[in-house]
């Protein structure tokens, strides 16, 4: 271990340092200092995020186990920003009477989850990949079951841990068969890529692997846990789960498909094609009939995951950059919606769509901001969501997936319908007793401000897309 290794793994080392520092602070600090725990954690994490933006050398550490390239650094920065936004918006929730004494746990667990994701997306070996995947999902289960006295939270935690363990068991079984077939040079991604051939055992391993990852991304045949977990978990944890966790899993799946399974593109293309079609369609159809806001957002995020996978399918450099750009735009829009939902939930304990009736009369600013995010998710032109969808469709159309793009376009129209249901509830539907006027706290305001700026300008300013685009590599 020398100084180059430490510089290559700077985000990971900083996160470990932050983790230890927060644990020590939580154990030994006086009660007076602990009042400022949120601010200290946010500032330290902001520093980590800013370090992530510094330019980076490319290279490998630990004999190729850990790969640092520019695209990884970009994705890590995106995830960092997402976690920072989650921290900002969860301050009110954490300072209520039930969670105040254990609020440090949330910061520590989220940071350890993020560490797992960072290891997962920059791994060059299946062992590190697996450890990162587990480190990313085990603390999440504890976070989901965080509200100890809420039955729904416990239920969601039980469902999540069983599903996460089951899916990683399936993934591991695939990996073990893969090891039996092509393991002579070890499980390094670079060593494997030339050896993979479409024999039956390797195809079986690939299908098991994709199934295991699809559980984590909640693509459709494997999505049944999603809505329950999203509904039961604390709202801010749901925000983290739907954006940061999903984004990291998509990027990791993309890395493995591009680096390891590139020889059998014809085989996984077929699998991913089918997954995308059912994911977008079923996610949309089920989102229409939801009454609970968090379940609604769960199905919306399932269908958004389908669009992200659409950028992954072509295997081109354009596809990769469109996926990362989609992740960035989806992050600001979706975290913004969750910020509004959690502000309203903290204020009134209401989370069904009919409770939003007439919100515009009492909370005009929040309603307009919420409308902006919903339009961005639906892909209406001036907002960033339109551009991200446009790039994804462009990447797919470039490789002649016209039928798939057509299905996705029809689904965009369907999705507009259910996003507009919420807008209609807020602006048009009359209500005698709408949610009373909310006084938003400063940190949530700051988080919302960042989300609004991102949603308005990420698409219009070409700087962000071009930065991502110059780092992306494709299959061919």
């Amino acid at each position, binding site marked *: 271990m020398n100084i180059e290794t430490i510089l290559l793994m700077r985000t990971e080392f900083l996160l470990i340092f932050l983790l230890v520092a927060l644990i020590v602070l939580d154990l030994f600090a006086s009660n007076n200092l602990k009042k400022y725990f949120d601010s200290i954690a946010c500032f330290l994490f902001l520093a980590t995020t800013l370090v992530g933006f510094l330019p980076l050398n490319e290279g490998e550490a630990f004999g190729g186990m850990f790969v640092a390239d520019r695209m990884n650094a970009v994705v890590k920065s995106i995830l960092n920003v997402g976690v920072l936004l989650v921290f900002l918006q969860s301050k009110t929730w954490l300072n209520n009477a039930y969670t105040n004494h254990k609020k440090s746990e949330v910061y520590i667990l989220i940071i350890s989850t993020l560490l797992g994701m960072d290891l997962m997306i920059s791994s060059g070996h299946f062992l590190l990949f697996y450890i990162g995947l587990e480190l990313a999902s085990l603390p999440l289960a504890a976070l989901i079951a965080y509200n*100890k006295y809420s039955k729904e939270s416990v*239920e969601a935690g039980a469902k999540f841990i*069983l599903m996460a363990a*089951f899916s990683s*068991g399936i993934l591991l*079984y695939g990996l*073990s068969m893969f*090891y039996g077939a092509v393991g002579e040079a070890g*499980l390094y991604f670079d060593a494997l890529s030339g050896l993979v051939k479409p024999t039956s055992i390797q195809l079986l391993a690939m299908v098991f692997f994709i199934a295991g990852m699809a559980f984590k991304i909640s693509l459709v045949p494997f999505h049944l846990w999603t809505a*329950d977990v999203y509904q039961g978990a604390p709202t801010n944890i749901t925000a983290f789960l739907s954006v940061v966790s999903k984004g990291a899993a998509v990027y990791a799946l993309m890395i493995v498909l591009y680096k390891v399974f590139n020889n059998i593109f014809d085989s996984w293309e077929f699998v991913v094609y089918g997954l995308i079609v059912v994911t977008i369609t079923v996610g949309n159809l089920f989102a229409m009939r939801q009454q609970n806001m968090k379940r609604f957002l769960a199905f919306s995020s399932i269908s958004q995951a389908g669009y992200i996978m659409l950028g992954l399918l072509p295997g081109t450099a354009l596809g990769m950059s469109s996926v990362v750009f989609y992740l960035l735009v989806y992050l600001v829009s979706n975290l913004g919606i969750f910020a509004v939902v959690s502000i309203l939930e903290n204020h009134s304990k209401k989370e069904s769509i009919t409770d939003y009736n007439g919100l515009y009369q009492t909370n005009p600013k929040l309603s307009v901001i919420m409308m902006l995010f919903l339009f961005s998710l639906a892909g209406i032109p001036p907002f960033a969501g339109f551009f991200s969808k446009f790039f994804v469709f462009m990447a797919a159309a470039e490789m002649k997936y016209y039928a798939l793009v057509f299905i996705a376009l029809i689904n965009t129209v369907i999705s507009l319908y259910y996003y507009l249901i919420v807008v209609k509830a807020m602006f048009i539907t009359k209500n005698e007793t709408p949610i009373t006027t909310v006084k938003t706290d400063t940190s949530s305001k700051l988080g919302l401000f960042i989300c609004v700026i991102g949603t308005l300008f990420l698409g219009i300013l070409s700087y962000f897309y071009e930065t991502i685009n110059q780092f992306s590599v494709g299959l061919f």
Partner: protein
Amino acid sequence: MDISLVIGLVVDYFSKNPMAPYLIVSTIMFFAGVYGFITRHNLLAMLMSLELILNAVNINFVVFNRFLYPGQMEGMFFSIFAIGVAAAETAVGIAIIINVFRSGKKIETSEVNTMKY
């Protein structure tokens, strides 16, 4: 058919394929685990089925390592890490199941079905 003939065939097959008995065991374990995970109504039994799945994977890794690539240790390492991670997984799982027990005094799956569709 004569029973000794069958035994002779089996012994012959296993002596030609030294990996086969281990792989048969691990495959049966894996699918027993999947079956148990789907059919059990007790959360602890589901957790035990998960352990079966993970241990089947470990057997696979060790057997492939021992018989196919005796010059390296990747499979052994992988199974050691998998054992460690499985222990962590079980710990978190049992902690959550204890919470389920606290809220309803039962650990059946019927305790965790309030959220649906």
